Structures are given as C-alpha cells and as structure tokens.
C-alpha cells in the first residue's frame, strides 16, 4: 500500500511515525485487525448498517453552521461543524459505532474501552447497550472523581466502570489497564480505542470512521459556498480523533490549511501543559511511535489541561507526521484562553462548547484571517459535561 496522508504504509507508518510496538501477547489480536479491518469496513453490508445508524441513531449529517456573529468578530467566514449535536454529544460515537460493528463481525462478545473525560466511554457504552454486548470501561481513579456525571451515564447504560489505580490514575493509565485486560482476554474481547492512537491499524481505522466529518463538510460547503474546499480547517488535538476526521478529506488538498490546536494548560512552559508537539520528543507510547511528552530518562510525564479530553501526553502518529512534515499548522491555547473562547461562543452564537472544542475556538485568535477566507471549525462536543468548570470560572 502506498503511503499518503490518508493511508499509512502496510506496517502502519505515516512518515517516521506509527507502527505496532506491542508485546507478543497482543500480536494475534492486532494482526487479526490489521488483516481484516479494511475488508470489513468497506464491505457493503457493513457500510449500509454503519451509515444507517449514523443517520437514524446518531442524527447525521450534523449541520455545517455559518456562525455569522463570530465571523463578524474575526472579519471572516466561520462555519461550525456541529459534532456537538450527535447523539451522546460528541464526535466519539462515530468511531464507537464503527468499531462495535466491526467487533461483531470478528465474533467478539466483550467490548473494553478506555476513557478520560468519559465521552468515549459513554459513546461505547451507548453502542454496546444498543447491540446488547457486554461493555467494560477503564477510567483513571482521578477522572472518575472529576467526571461523575459521565460515570453515572455509563453505569445507567449498563457498562461496568473499572477504576485504573496504577501510575498517575488518569487517561494514560486507563489505556494501560485496558491493554492489559485485552492481553488477559485474547480471544473474546475487542478493545475499542477512542482516538487515533495505539498500534496499527487503530490510528488509520479510527481516522477512517471519523472521516465522515470531512466527507460531509465537502458537500455541505459546496452547497453553501459553491466550493468544496475551505481555506482553513481548525480542530483541537489531544490524541486527535476529531481533528483526524475533520482533516481527512482535505489531507491531500495542499491549498487547505489544516490547523491543530493543542492544550497549553497553564502555559506551554509552565510545567502544567499538554502541548505535545511543542514539549514532546519522538518515542513509543501505547503501541505506536509518535511524539511523546517524557523526561530525559524516557518516562512518560503527566500532562495538564483543564480539558480532560486533551489531557494526554501523546498524539496520534498521523498528527505527528502532519507536524513533522509541515502539512499541519500546530497551535496551542491555554486553559484561560479556551474558557474565554467558550464564553465568547455562548454570547455570540448561543452554543455552549465542550472545553476540548473551546481550544479550537481559542486558536482562531492566532490566525491572521482574511475577509475572503472560509474557515471550518470542528465543534467536536457540547459543553454540558463541563458546566461545573465553566460555573467556577464565571464566579471567579
């Protein structure tokens, strides 16, 4: 397979990044996925079921909304891709449906997932409830405490939430625990990874399931502007699944500027940040070679972001390649800038964005946008889960 931005080589590499750095105990499961994922994903019966669920269950296509007052503020044209209007409130469900359907075709009876903020956990629990499949979600003890509403949602949906007590007790440790579960249950279990991270084929598979975002943007934009191509696509990046989906059908259109906004936390150099491309170096995390935030000794460090969904010390290998090759422009926004951008969107457009998506909005301030520019911004999720954080900031 020829390597392009939209598909890695046969070993899962995008440029220098990717691969499958996994212990032998995972080899059979990962190899099974590698050899079957494309065939299953593009089989007609699968496409039909996937597309029908996206339409009738998730509510796709999601609107592409011209945010007029926000556009006026920046003296340009800003379209919001409303992934927040999906069932369960974020883009995560696109991938969860795809992977659960794929797991069924592989004959798997048990689904495991990791979650940080809880959005991917809720999406996976939702699809498992719909399909009547056992679902176990690993979540760091610290995240269980700070994301109580999503823990309650997962439980109500019938998922078992397993606390990850090792290491720093957050998303990276929940991922470790989920991988260990998969090692210990090699035959009946599928691991639904929530982002474009993990060993090959996960980064490519998740990007393809999320690519429905940019597939819709192209025809929606054509209807609205007469051209399928915007000048900019802006998205937040933690692991990078909504960005991968929003960029996907523009990756090989060099005139479209792809803008990824990472979480700077308290500031890139504050020691409390999650801006992986600025602070990280090449390394291996969770089964792929990418850019990783780590100490000089190669120990993975605990990042910080106000947004639990961006609070991850790595980045998907596709994004590492976009950064390394210069195809993508990488910005970062602090906690404060993102909260301000969220309040700004509420005031101007009547939309409460997720803290993750607020980082993409904050990134707009750093772009020199022209009047004729057409900017598509992926509003990856809604902000209901973040109300407690927003309220604290409003009072302050």
């Amino acid at each position, binding site marked *: 397979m020829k390597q392009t931005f939209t598909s890695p080589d046969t*070993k899962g590499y995008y440029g220098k990044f990717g*691969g*499958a*750095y*996994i*212990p*032998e*105990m995972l*080899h*059979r499961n990962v190899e099974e996925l590698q050899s079957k994922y494309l065939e299953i994903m593009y089989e007609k019966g699968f496409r039909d079921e996937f597309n029908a669920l996206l339409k009738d269950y998730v509510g796709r296509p999601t609107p592409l909304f011209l945010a007029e007052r926000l556009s006026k503020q920046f003296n340009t044209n800003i379209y919001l891709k409303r992934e927040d209007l999906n069932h369960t409130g974020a883009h995560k469900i696109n991938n969860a449906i795809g992977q659960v359907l794929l797991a069924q075709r592989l004959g798997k009876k048990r689904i495991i997932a990791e979650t940080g903020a809880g959005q991917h956990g809720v999406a996976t629990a939702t699809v498992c409830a719909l399909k009547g499949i056992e679902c176990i979600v690993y979540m760091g003890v610290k995240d269980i405490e700070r994301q109580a509403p999503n823990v309650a949602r997962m439980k109500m949906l019938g998922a078992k939430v397993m606390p990850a007590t*090792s*290491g720093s007790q957050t998303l*990276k*440790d929940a991922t*470790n625990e989920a*991988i*260990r579960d998969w*090692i*210990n249950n*090699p035959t009946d279990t599928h691991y639904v990874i929530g982002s474009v991270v993990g060993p090959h084929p996960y980064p490519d598979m998740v990007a393809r399931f999320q690519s429905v975002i940019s597939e819709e943007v192209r025809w929606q934009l054509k209807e609205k502007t007469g051209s399928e191509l915007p000048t900019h696509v802006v998205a937040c990046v933690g692991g990078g699944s909504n960005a991968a989906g929003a960029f996907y059908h523009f990756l090989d259109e060099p005139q479209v500027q792809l803008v990824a906004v990472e979480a700077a936390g308290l500031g890139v150099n504050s020691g409390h940040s999650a801006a992986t491309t600025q602070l990280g*170096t*090449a*390394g*291996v*995390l*969770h*089964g792929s070679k990418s850019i*990783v935030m*780590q100490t*000089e*000794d*190669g*120990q*993975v460090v605990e990042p910080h972001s106000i947004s639990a969904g961006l609070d991850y010390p790595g980045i998907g290998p596709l994004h590492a390649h976009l950064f390394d090759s210069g195809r993508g422009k990488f910005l970062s926004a602090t906690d404060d800038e993102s909260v301000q951008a969220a309040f700004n969107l509420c005031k101007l457009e009547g939309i409460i964005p997720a803290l993750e998506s607020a980082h993409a909005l904050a990134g707009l301030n750093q772009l020199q946008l022209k009047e004729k520019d057409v900017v598509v911004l992926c509003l990856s999720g809604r902000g209901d889960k973040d109300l407690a954080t927003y309220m604290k900031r409003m009072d302050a």
Partner: protein
Amino acid sequence: MNRIEQVFKNKNNRVLNVYCTAGYPKLDSTLQVMQALQEGGADLIELGMPYSDPLADGPVIQHSGSIALSNGMTIATLFKQLKDFRKTVTVPVILMGYMNPVMQYGFEKFCADAAAVGVDGLILPDLPQYEFETEYGVIIKKYGLDFIFLVTPETSEKRVKELDALSTGFLYAVSSSSTTGNDKDFGAVETYLQRLKNLQLKNPVLVGFGIKDKQTFESASKHSNGAIIGSAFVKALENSSDIKADTKRFIANVLS
C-alpha cells in the same frame, strides 16, 4: 561461547532465571540483590529497567517499577551501578525493559553501554519483529548482545519458528496470554509447552509468567529447559529488612 550459551551447555534442565527490578527495593540495592541471587543459585538474572507505562507487566512488577522510579532510578544511573558488577557477578544478566526509555537514551548508545559493563542480552517486549529485522537487530548484534523474543500460546507455529530463528540465547515462552503475575491453570500450559518442544527449536526455552514457587517451577521445567520467576520474587523483597537472607531463602524454597 558467551555466558548464556555456557549456562545451557552445562545444564539443560531446571535452569532458573530470576527477575528483579533495578533500583528496588532501594536505589542502591540493585547489585546486592543480584549478588544474593547468584549466591542463592539462580542461573540467570533478568534485570528490569523501570518504566512509567509497562504494558506487559502486572501490578506487582509495575508497583516495584514505580518505587524504583521514585527512588531515582534511570538507565544512566543503572549503568553507573553496573560499572564493576562483573567483579562479583558471573551469571548471565539480561536487561529487560521497554522501547521508549531505551530510544530516549539512544538505542545504539544503550547497546554499547550495556555490552561495555558486561550485560549479555536484552528483552524488549514492545520491540516488534519488523522493526527488529529492519532497524534494531543489526545494532544489537553489533555489540554482541543476545536478543530474546517472547512467544505465547496464541503464537502460531509458523511465527514461533520465525521468532526462534531471530532469537539468540533462549526463547521466552509466556505460559499463558496474560500480564505477569497472573495465576492460570497449569494443565493447559503443559500441553502448550509440549507443543513447543515438538517443534525442535534452535534455542532453549524458558517459561515465564505464573511461575512462583517450587511446584510451578518443577511443572514448567518438566517440558522446557527451565523457568523465569518475576512477580513472586519482587513481592518477597517488598518489606525485606535483610535482602540477602530473604533472597537466598526464596531461591532455596524454589530449588528445594
């Protein structure tokens, strides 16, 4: 003939390899533990380099790694501790760890420094076959280090043969598809080991994961060349006030 070959030449059954974590239980206990393992009768030592995200390890070994890291253990510190270890330790020593810290240290520099202090081989469970063949294997060989691949009951016969061909020193047979420190039914394990034996591999086979005492060591040895004990020994050192005595007692119980 290197040290690992020598071990299997002298003894092709009941070879005991014991895992310990560098910098655990105390930063400076690494060498003391290794010496005690040798005195107690371990044939090989697998020395674990602690990592923040050890995917293939269970909770006991991960916990020991966390303690070692908070003790201040790093790869650079470990090589300082090992500088003169060959003056007192003669058994083969295999470094076990994960790719990320090794890459960060510099893969070639790591191999060079390991060979210079007298390390015999490497186990890096997340270094895949493809990357070994295309990039890293040649560096490992350049410094005369053995590289030991893992196989599991899920590994196909064809793949076992490929990994055996690439391995030198011995082949590490994971007793069941699980992380370290897990209990599994040993009956199924015996069938699997017998299957490996029938493949007539070029390397000796040591069995790891779930080996914790005399009984499991004996069962594993029945169908292989020996076994690797990890979590059970790490646990035995957890609250040790006399590392030497506790290590010797542990080994004596296994070999009794």
